[in-house]
């Protein structure tokens, strides 16, 4: 210890432990989020949709598979809040259970596509050279194919079903994330703090895992949240074509498909799942926008 080193006093009100410091940062982010009205609307919507899906068994009024052919195509009434479909099934209950499937597909896809995209992008951006070239050409191939066609081809090969739909959509979702992560990495790797940690003898993997990935995370999180919209639409598209969830599954896209022939005469059958797809996509979009403002630490 050097004697007589002048101490620069810092305010005593700051955090005194690591946990306190982290908690304070989270609180600041939450406050920033709260001031953004549209993001809060999105968040509330999202909470409602997730709750409806989770508590479906308790808030559904009927069994979603129960057919009542005597009461087909009924308009909304006291017993059937959103009416009945072409087989007399309660639309409200089907929409609730359908939410479960859609959200399941969306979350599972994100859990697969995001880490894969992040890993490919970060490795590609940091090492450069022929690694970058090979990985980017692979990414380009996946990007060149329209996502729905790609998903179709995959499902056609593996057969229809929810899990295959998830894999198919993931294949189409990871390339944009890889590109984003790569661009971020290429900017970050020139930073002085990366040079500093290299001078401490860190290996490339240490730098990737502890320095580059944490810095990329905010952009990737925002991008992923915004991409969920297209994931939901792809899932609905596959369901519409009969390649995702199979009947009698109440997946929203499948519901839209079977409601097609009644769209002019009994529009309410298609309206319910259609509006739910819209609201869920909108909610994720608004939250994604809000996250973008919140997760950027340099804005004040």
């Amino acid at each position, binding site marked *: *210890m*050097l004697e007589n080193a002048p*101490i*620069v*006093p810092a305010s005593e009100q700051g955090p005194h432990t690591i946990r306190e410091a982290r908690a304070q940062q989270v609180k600041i982010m939450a406050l920033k989020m709260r001031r953004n009205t549209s993001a809060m609307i999105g968040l509330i919507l999202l909470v409602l949709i997730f709750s409806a899906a989770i508590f479906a068994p308790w808030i559904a009024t009927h069994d979603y598979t129960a057919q009542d052919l005597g009461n087909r195509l009924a308009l909304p009434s006291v017993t059937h809040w959103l009416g009945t479909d072409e087989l007399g099934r309660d639309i409200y209950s089907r929409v609730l259970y359908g939410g479960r499937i859609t959200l399941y597909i969306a979350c599972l896809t994100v859990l697969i596509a995001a880490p894969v995209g992040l890993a490919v992008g970060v490795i590609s951006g940091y090492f450069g050279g022929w690694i970058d070239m090979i990985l980017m050409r692979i990414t380009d191939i996946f990007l060149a194919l329209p996502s729905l066609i790609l998903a179709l081809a995959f499902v056609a090969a593996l057969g229809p079903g929810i899990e295959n739909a998830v894999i198919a959509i993931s294949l189409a979702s990871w390339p944009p994330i890889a590109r984003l992560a790569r661009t971020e990495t290429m900017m970050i790797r020139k930073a002085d703090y990366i040079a500093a*940690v290299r001078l*401490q003898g860190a290996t490339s993997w240490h730098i990737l895992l502890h320095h580059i990935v944490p810095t990329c995370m905010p952009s990737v999180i925002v991008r992923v949240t915004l991409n969920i919209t297209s994931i939901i639409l792809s899932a609905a598209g596959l369901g519409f074509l009969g390649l995702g969830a199979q009947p009698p599954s109440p997946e929203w896209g499948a519901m839209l498909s079977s409601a097609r022939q009644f769209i002019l005469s009994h529009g309410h059958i298609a309206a319910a799942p259609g509006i739910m797809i819209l609201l869920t996509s909108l909610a994720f979009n608004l939250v994604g926008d809000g996250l973008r403002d919140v997760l950027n630490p340099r804005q004040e």
Partner: protein
Amino acid sequence: MRDTLLDVEDLAVSYGSGANVITVVQETGFRIARGESYGLIGESGCGKSTILRTVAGLNPHYEGRILCQGHELPRIRAREHYRAMQMVFQDPYGSLHPYKMVQNVLAEPVKLMGLGDVQRRIDEVLHNVGLGPQFKFRYPHELSGGQRQRVAIARALIVEPSLLLLDEPTSALDVSVQAEILNLLTRLRRDLGLTYLMVSHDLAVVAHMCDRIAIMQQGRILEELTGGDLRSGRMTADYTREFLTASVPALACY
């Protein structure tokens, strides 16, 4: 020369290949004795920062030899080579990871170098750079420029290097903060027996901090001077004279 710590011989750095070769540093060399403070000064593009980064080990593509304490350093450095010399960067905000708090910034080099006693080293180095223990839990965006630069200096010192490479350490700071940081660096050199290699474009700062100064132009060291030489006009190169005239402050008496 007494006990040479750093010996740079015939260093040459170029980028590009074939017809597009740009030579940034042209076969240049210098020696720094242990405990000395050596300055490299010149304008942008003269190659001073390139020399610094090459000496640090951040640029493995060079010709020539770099010797530390008599042993030639390999192009790809190992941990013990990195431990002997550390760098303080110009932009205090860019040199600290934005999402890591000071505690982690300082703990990382200790762990990477395999040195024990993490908490004691952190507390000691923070005290030496004049920051209180509360600063451990701050994030870079909560610190002022001067405080960030102190953390950067602490990070460089925590592994106990013998040579400190300073890349324009105060040019991004306010004038009043510059004086504090320069005083800190002077004190640390004296008390810890460090050797400095400092790069700057500010002649007054380099003349204040360094025992010997090398003027660079277009990748070459033109001449080596001391502060006394500068003051008495004992320079041989015209460029040095031009540089001096452009740097002289307007106020003559206060």
